[in-house]
């Protein structure tokens, strides 16, 4: 298909994706999705958070993992940027630091797919930081 340029092109693309999206929305409630937050404070952006967020979006979609990826502000871990928080359905959120594309790939394959722990987890205490 030609490149999407107008809102009409987007409408057509959406219609062709609709069945897939419908299936996903009817089949599951959002709580059953993997929820990912990418820290986007200045320090996160300067150390590559944009690339990591793009990688996660593309790869989770390609690998067929139901997920919601959002941006968040400072999580208080300047020293370990880029950082992401991953919440698997029914589990406590976990924060990973020093995430580049390679680490992100490992997080998807090991932690998200199989629940295996991987290096780079930051102990959770940011709830107390304002």
């Amino acid at each position, binding site marked *: 298909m030609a*490149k*999407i*340029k*107008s*809102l009409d*092109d*987007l*409408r057509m*693309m*959406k219609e062709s*994706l*609709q069945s*897939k*999206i419908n299936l996903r929305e009817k089949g599951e409630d959002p709580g059953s999705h993997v929820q990912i937050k*990418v820290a*986007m*404070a*200045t*320090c996160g*952006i*300067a150390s590559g958070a*944009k690339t990591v*967020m*793009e990688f996660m*979006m*593309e790869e*989770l*979609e390609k690998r067929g993992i139901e*997920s*919601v*990826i*959002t*941006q968040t*502000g400072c999580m208080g871990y300047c020293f370990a940027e880029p950082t992401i928080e991953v919440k698997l359905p029914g589990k406590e959120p976990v924060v990973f630091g020093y995430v580049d594309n390679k680490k992100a790939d490992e997080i998807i394959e090991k932690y998200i797919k199989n629940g295996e722990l991987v290096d780079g987890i930051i102990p959770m205490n940011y709830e107390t930081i304002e």
Partner: protein
Amino acid sequence: MKDIALHILDIIQNSIVAKATLIEISIDEDFVNDSILVTIKDNGCGMSKKMIEKVSDPYTTSRTTRKVGLGIPLLKQNADRTGGYLSIKSELEIGTTLIASFKPSNIDCLPMGDIAGVISLTVSGNPSIDFIYNHKINGNLYTFSTIEVKKVLGDVSIGDPSISVYLKEMIQTNLEEIQIDSIGYKT
């Protein structure tokens, strides 16, 4: 930051933290008059006069306390270096408008970077906020509005991971077109 697009990504985060529901990003690249203007306007909580003075000055504040951030001082430094400027207008409970001006002929001027990626990522990552993005190159304008996009998408969320790539493609294709038009305009 290594390009203007990453600065914009960063400044938008300030508006998000300020609880804006509508954020307008305008970029005007006017190579005939050697000017790039970046304007980010939000309807967030705004800042007091005291706060505006504080955030604009990198020497008195950002270096001493950890509470004041680096985003605005870094952008100011990169704008000033080219012979441009940074200005902030803000009113409590009304919102904030930040303008960064660059002179593209200056060798210190950062490249634009992946602006289509920044806009699509920000839009996908903040589905409940509306964004209007105007990009002008030598007078040729492209406007992208999530208000319109959300109408087209209907009950499909703008944050749906399968949509993001197409939003980026849509912005990119239009930017390429105004870029080509602007070359015709120049000669």
